[in-house]
């Protein structure tokens, strides 16, 4: 017999600890649950996660299910999809909320297929009322779109920052263990490797001048290092594309798959402001963006916006600094 609807948060964890992003998604789910009357459950796929389960049930007040199998000790897309599908099939409907991380965004779409579910990735907000509507950004953050799931199940991946991890629980939720008898048939897990990027020390800089694709080529990197050289305790950083093209080394990449920085001043030069880049620098104290596209999404997340071509503006600004300092 299947039971009713459920809002299921799938926890992400490392070294036995549940990450902050999962707490945010749990808070987001509890808000959705409060407005829809659906019960929220935090599912922790893993092995030996009892202590972490107890902690999150106490902090959030949500009920917790430990979905256990030796094959879930390490994350694999195949293992997560199989175990979550098996568990969720017991319900008639549901909204599965997955942290939008490198892991979550890998298995969530496949899980949606198994459940015949709507699939909405990169969700950053929600509206409820006449059914639930989820918002996500597209076109590099130039457009926000609202989607309504049109299936019994929906699998959504939730961006960091969609909700504050704050709870007003009236006591701990229940913790139940369910064992899963999945097998890995086509995937062999071989471990996690550390980043090969050398340490560039950019995490400790007070000022970061950062180059994006708009810099145009390795021959213009001198403008970035030249500007950075005029500040104390400064460093140069860059977007992923700049590393991919070999214009700077990977140790300087800022964003989710690179470094997370929060200098006092961040100067983004020819960077469009993709979410994956913003994730690594939006905590900066003061942000200046230079970009020739007045609609560039980076401007929405900056304090000062300079709509200019870098090749014209940077030499002018370097000259201005020299002049003011001299006189």
């Amino acid at each position, binding site marked *: 017999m299947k039971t009713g609807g459920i809002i299921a948060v799938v926890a992400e964890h490392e070294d036995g600890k549940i990450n902050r992003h999962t707490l945010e998604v749990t808070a987001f789910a509890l808000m959705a649950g409060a407005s829809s009357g659906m019960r929220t459950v935090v599912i922790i796929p893993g092995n030996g996660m009892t202590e972490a389960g107890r902690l999150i049930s106490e902090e959030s007040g949500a009920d917790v299910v430990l979905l256990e199998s030796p094959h879930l000790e390490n994350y694999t897309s195949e293992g997560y999809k199989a175990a979550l599908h098996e568990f969720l099939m017991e319900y008639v409907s549901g909204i599965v909320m997955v942290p939008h991380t490198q892991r979550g965004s890998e298995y969530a779409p*496949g899980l949606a297929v198994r459940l015949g579910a*709507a*699939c909405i990735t990169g969700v950053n907000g929600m509206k409820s009322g006449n059914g639930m509507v989820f918002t996500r950004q597209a076109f590099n953050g130039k457009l*926000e779109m609202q*989607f*309504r799931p049109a299936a019994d199940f929906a699998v959504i991946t939730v961006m960091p920052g969609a909700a504050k991890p704050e709870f007003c629980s009236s006591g701990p939720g229940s913790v139940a263990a369910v064992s899963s008898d999945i097998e890995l048939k086509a995937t062999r897990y071989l471990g996690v490797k550390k*980043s090969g990027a050398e340490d560039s020390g950019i995490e400790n800089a007070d000022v970061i001048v950062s180059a994006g694709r708009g810099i145009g080529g390795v021959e213009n990197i001198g403008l970035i290092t030249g500007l950075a050289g005029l500040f104390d305790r400064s460093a140069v950083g860059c977007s992923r594309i700049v590393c991919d093209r070999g214009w700077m080394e990977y140790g300087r990449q800022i964003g989710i798959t690179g470094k997370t920085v929060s200098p006092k001043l961040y100067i983004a030069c020819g960077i469009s402001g993709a979410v994956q880049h913003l994730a690594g620098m939006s905590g900066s104290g003061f942000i200046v963006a230079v970009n020739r596209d007045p609609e560039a999404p980076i401007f929405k*997340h900056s304090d000062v916006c300079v709509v200019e071509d870098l090749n014209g503006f940077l030499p002018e600004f370097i000259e201005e600094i020299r002049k003011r300092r001299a006189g």
Partner: protein
Amino acid sequence: MDGKKPQGRAAGRIKVLVCIKQVRDPEAPLVLREDGSVDLESGASRFMNRFDEFAIEEALGMKDAGLAECVHAVTVGPERSGQAIRRAMEMGADSGTRIDFPGDFSSGPWPVSGLLAGFARKGSYDLILTGVISEDDMQGAVGQMTAEILGIPCAASVVLAELDPGKGTLYVEREIESGRRECLELALPALIAVQSGINRPRYPSLSNVLRAGKEKINTADPEEFGIIPAREILVGMNRPGSTRDPVFLDGRTREKAARLWDILHERSLI
């Protein structure tokens, strides 16, 4: 995979499919109409999704190394998206097919994944590659959904892929947060969604441009594969708000430079 052991293949007999998409230039202005709809058709240049270029290059590298027998490119889209297929052939893909479907950004990932899976099934490919995300929709879902519809394993954000045809396996490293890598072995047939930086995509060679110019782009009827309807309904669009209080500097270049000095100086940032 039905629990079967991976089947070995003779090196050089691997069939590879690359799924690509034509995207609208993300730098082109976006016009939101009064009625809340958006004009995505007019006034913007289009090109192959840059993440897909890495997928093509990865496949061509396998062919160059004598591991793969052929590399086919496929896209789901309207007539204009045939240009992306042409580009893939200019880079070196052996053939290209466009599945004629609006592939509208509002349709969500289901219809496109269903069509790609249907096409892949007919061609019995050993390896399917996609880009990790498309630059316009930014859903990052179609690759993984295509794999799941086919019932084959997949990995996303792949930054290293090594094919072992004899064993019938693919070794992959996928990038996770902070540049760390998860290492896995997948049994073929498999799908990987590749991340930028996995290789350096080549420019089309003159001989390939000439060859591609002569070859025709196959057009496939979506009905042949069965269309899976969208399961997400677009109910509205708007421009996202700002997270800070942005001040746009005006004046000429020199005036902006001077103003920027003043602002930074006032805040003791310079």
